[in-house]
């Protein structure tokens, strides 16, 4: 059972790492601020989600697991809100 969980953790965390890598490549390669934000939020949301899901079976206790999920939700809230704010400020600076 524990081997299955370990394999699950490894696969999920590797998947998360892949999204982080893809998000970083997008951040470096995409042409403008909007597409770069798009790449970043994918890394934040999906990458972190997969890392958190992968870590859940490794936690001892519900409380530690709940804290991890709370961290994920907080990061989603802040990254979502902040990317909206950045996009709005970029839009305001654009020539009309």
């Amino acid at each position, binding site marked *: 059972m524990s081997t299955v969980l370990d394999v699950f953790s490894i696969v999920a965390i590797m998947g998360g790492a892949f999204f982080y890598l893809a998000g970083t490549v997008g951040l470096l390669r995409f042409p403008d601020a909007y597409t770069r934000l798009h790449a970043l939020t994918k890394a934040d949301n999906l990458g972190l989600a997969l890392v958190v899901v992968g870590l859940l079976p490794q936690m001892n206790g519900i409380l530690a697991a709940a804290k991890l999920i709370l961290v994920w939700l907080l990061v989603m809230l*802040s990254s979502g809100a902040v990317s909206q*704010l950045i996009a709005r400020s970029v839009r305001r600076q654009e020539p009309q």
Partner: protein
Amino acid sequence: MIAPVVSMVVVALLLWLAVWSVVAHDAFLAVAAFVVYGLLLALVWVRLAGIDVALTEAAIGGGLTGALLLGAVGRLRRTEAALSTEHAGTGTRIAAALLAVGVAGGLMIAVTMLPEQPPTLAPLVVPALPATGVGNPITGVLLAFRALDTLLEAIVLVIALIGVWSFGPDHAWGGRPGPRYSADPNGMLAYLARVLPPLGIVIGIYLFWAGADHPGGKFQSATILAAMWMLVQMAALADTPRTDRNILRAGIVVGPLVFIVVGVFGLWTAGAFLGYPDGWSKPLILLIEMALLPTLVLVLALLMNGPATRKAVP
């Protein structure tokens, strides 16, 4: 096998960010590098098992200092272009380079001359910790064995705030600091400022309470609480406070005052300034921490707000 490689990468990144934040031509880029540097440094402290230091570094070093510097960048923007056309003379450059090399060389020599076994008081402190009734050694040291340092730290913060306030124009003294923020009341910032503070306040108080026995404490807690207040201000859900309100000023000085009163009280009961009588150290430490919390929250947030700039006409 992997751990040393990760450490090396983090150290290399840290050095690169440090150099970048110094040589960057754009002040905003320099501050961005500095903030990332602070966050990475927090990771380094986690790897060194200094969770308390890591929390403080992330909150104060990366977060609060970063925000203060960003505010400074915003205010300097008008003069930055003029400044970048100025160049120091060759003599000045050579003198600066010599000074930098001299300081770095001196530091390198000093580091190599450090004794293998660093001098430490830890073996003496650890057996004495249970007497303080506090489980977290950092809190115990800060508020029992080095209480005078913590007291002076709190006083320095209050004096710094008075210093910032005194930069304001005379006519605005006692008024509200900074500009009145404007934001879409139904926008994203206002949404965040409504959703996040309840959670942030709970987490801030948790960090404060956990500080007695686990990593955490008043400083980290105060930064989070101050950040929540700043968020509400920036989303224009509340204006910056009037700096002539008595309750505000009382909150600013309550921490150092309670600390000093407890310290003087120690002269009679424990025979030393800041001494705690037997069996009373835990409640007294808790009292001091509780009094310091509002001081720190108010001072950190008001340092961010800056000096008073506008006063309502009576």
